[in-house]
């Protein structure tokens, strides 16, 4: 890979990272928000590297001043020949021999800039491992608000572990996206969670009865009550809802977490 291409590649990769982390929220589709500062720094660093490379190229023209590089091709060939001959240019020469595999770096760079894939959704959720809910011994009394906003994880632990069965008869409100279950009357309200990047995605699902499934990946807030199956408060209970209302909501910016519904419902 020739040096002008290396400059392009470095700058494009840097721009891609900056585009995804600084100018937009794209990076939240792939990694955790805590990675963001590192991505910004990396983006700037890559651009700096590219600029330094371009600048040193224009300075290394032996015996010619900077304008001549603008003349282009012949000048460049000339320089490259000198690289092989001059001992002090040895490192520079070696580094123009970046293997072809480096070309592949264009893929993530361009993909981030122009064709970023969406966040993981129903396809992954229907196949990914289900996240284990934490084991909880003591449960605080539930607040009296109705409908009660609750996360999918909390709902599941309440249903499966709370011996006092505080969730019984309560109307709860949860937000997630739709994962349809083919050929059945129910569907899964889903959240995907990541611990580092999208490669380690795990999902948590609450089965919804009584409401027809919307299109896959639609973000919804639903209200409902526990759908009786198994013994409430034990692991035989299934995290499931009899849906009452359903409302489409905007996809949250940071989708890879299990959060409460926005306080928008009237």
């Amino acid at each position: 890979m020739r040096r002008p291409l290396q400059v392009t590649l470095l700058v494009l990769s840097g721009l891609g990272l900056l585009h995804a982390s600084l100018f937009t929220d794209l990076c939240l589709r792939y990694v955790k928000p805590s990675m963001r500062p590192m991505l910004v720094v990396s983006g700037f660093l890559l651009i700096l590297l590219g600029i330094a490379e371009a600048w040193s190229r224009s300075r290394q023209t032996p015996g010619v001043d900077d304008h001549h590089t603008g003349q282009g091709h012949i000048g460049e060939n000339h320089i490259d020949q000198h690289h092989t001959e001059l001992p002090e240019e040895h490192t520079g020469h070696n580094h123009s021999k970046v293997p072809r595999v480096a070309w592949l770096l264009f893929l993530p760079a361009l993909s981030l800039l122009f064709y970023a894939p969406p966040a993981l959704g129903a396809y992954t959720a229907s196949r990914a491992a289900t996240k284990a809910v934490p084991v909880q011994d003591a449960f605080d009394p539930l607040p009296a608000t109705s409908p009660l906003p609750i996360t999918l994880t909390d709902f599941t632990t309440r249903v499966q572990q709370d011996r006092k069965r505080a969730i019984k008869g309560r109307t709860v409100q949860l937000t997630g996206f739709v994962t349809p279950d083919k050929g059945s009357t129910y569907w899964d309200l889903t959240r995907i969670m990541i611990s580092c990047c999208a490669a380690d995605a795990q999902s948590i699902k609450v089965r919804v009865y009584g409401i027809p499934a919307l299109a896959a990946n639609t973000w919804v807030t639903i209200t409902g009550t526990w759908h009786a199956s198994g013994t409430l408060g034990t692991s035989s209970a299934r995290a499931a809802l009899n849906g009452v209302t359903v409302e489409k909501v905007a996809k949250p910016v940071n989708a890879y977490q299990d959060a409460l519904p926005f306080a928008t419902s009237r």
Partner: protein
Amino acid sequence: MQTTVEPPRAAAEAEVTAAGWPRYWPLLLLGAAVVPGLLLFSVGRWMDSPAVQAWRTVCLAITTQALPFLLLGTALSGAINAFVPARVFTKVLPKRAAFAVPVAGMAGVVLPGCECASVPVANSLIGRGVTPAAAFAFLLSAPAINPVVLTATAVAFPASPVMVLARLLASLATAVVMGWLWLWLGREEWLRPVARHTGHRPGHSRFTEFRTGFQHDFLHAGGFLVVGAMAAATFNVAVPRSVLDTFAGSPWLSVLFLAALAIILAVCSEADAFVASSLTGFSPTARLAFMVVGPMVDLKLIALQAGTFGRAFAVRFSAATTVVAVLSSALIGAVLL
């Protein structure tokens, strides 16, 4: 016939162009910008199918997640090459290679990154005269036993702090055994010669040496990172996790299965503890194997190592490491967990 005459001439012309590449670089640049776009457009329907989208997301996620760490590692490797005199290493490390291995293994504690950072660093260590066995012990232990990873492990397993100790010991043992194994059986010719890491030479700007080394290593390793991310994403999307449950029952199979899973999933070592803690159906020993094998052998690491040290090395080394890591985690798991 003209057509029979034309191709050789065209080929010769193409060769001339290949030699004088920069002449066409703006064109190539344009091609690089336009051709993928066109390709993407024409296969757009296919690319937007859920499976391919998930594949692209996972692939890009692995690359994005690893890039900062790769930059850190290559910067460190460039800095070692340009700023650290070779005598520092000969002073710090014991003369006898057999003693240098455990010291280098322990030194892994200081590199706060994931496995992508350690490959270029190990490479530059070898270039600076560190015996390969010690450099490999460092390469294997650094991503597994640094404070960031151990903290993450403690957070992921709040109920069993002994898991942290088990991970530390099993990873360190594997790294040291692999170092000694290299001393015993390793051959230099498996390693691609490292001509680049010549260190600082008098009369050169240290900063320029640092910059060019950094840049070269990054572009080089970055390309292989993308290869590894693609392979890992393929398995990640193609293998449904429900397969996991069928293996959870048998204690031995589950250890082997989670070790294999660690290799194909290529989860970053800073995150694998969280993944391991979620594999609830499996025995603690199997999960330990997942966390010991993962930072040492996985698809993106094999690709990185093949690019850095050569394919002959990467294949042998990864295979041996897997065996040693599984044995050591089984042993330590049986004692501690």
